[in-house]
């Protein structure tokens, strides 16, 4: 498994290399992309990016949880969770790229 962690900076660098924009504008564009996806999800929309994957929002009902350390019961209020379902293409490329030889 690789040990590198990419950040926004690496994504803006890729945009910078691909399209002849300034580094500053490239990083603003990366930020806008993430913001538009976030805003749609906050509005409860599903975000479906073909050949990448689907982000969807699910409502979880309230339930009684337990503090695993103390055994104490704690109420867990209803909440929204985000799930990401990778596309076939992403799954295939990740599986192929990390295969042991």
């Amino acid at each position, binding site marked *: 498994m690789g040990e590198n962690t990419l950040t926004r900076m690496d994504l803006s660098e890729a945009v910078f290399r691909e399209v002849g924009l300034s580094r500053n504008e490239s990083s603003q564009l990366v930020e806008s992309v993430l913001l538009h996806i976030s805003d749609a999800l906050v509005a409860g929309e*599903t975000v479906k990016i073909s050949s990448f994957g689907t982000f969807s929002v699910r409502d979880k009902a309230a339930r009684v949880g337990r503090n695993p350390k103390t055994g104490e019961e704690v109420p867990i209020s209803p909440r*929204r969770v985000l799930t990401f379902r990778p596309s076939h293409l992403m799954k295939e490329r990740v599986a192929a790229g990390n295969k042991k030889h």
Partner: protein
Amino acid sequence: MIRSELIQKIADENPHLYQRDVERIVNTIFEEIIDAMARGDRVELRGFGAFSVKKRDARTGRNPRTGESVHVDEKCVPFFKTGKLLRDRMNGND
């Protein structure tokens, strides 16, 4: 929202860019994330979430139709964990 709608939103905000460049920008971002995971790397986008690769051990699966046992090799799968800020925003705590 689908990919083309996302591209349109970015294009509307950046009238000085050609539509095809906006397409390249958006595609590059997603492509870069997939490439990183294909190398086994993590992509950490603070406030949004993190993409990483998880290893699934080899196991003996079953063909659900015939009940026959089949060997499933060890494999790596993509995984996404929602960032704290986005999780809070989705739950109305801005």
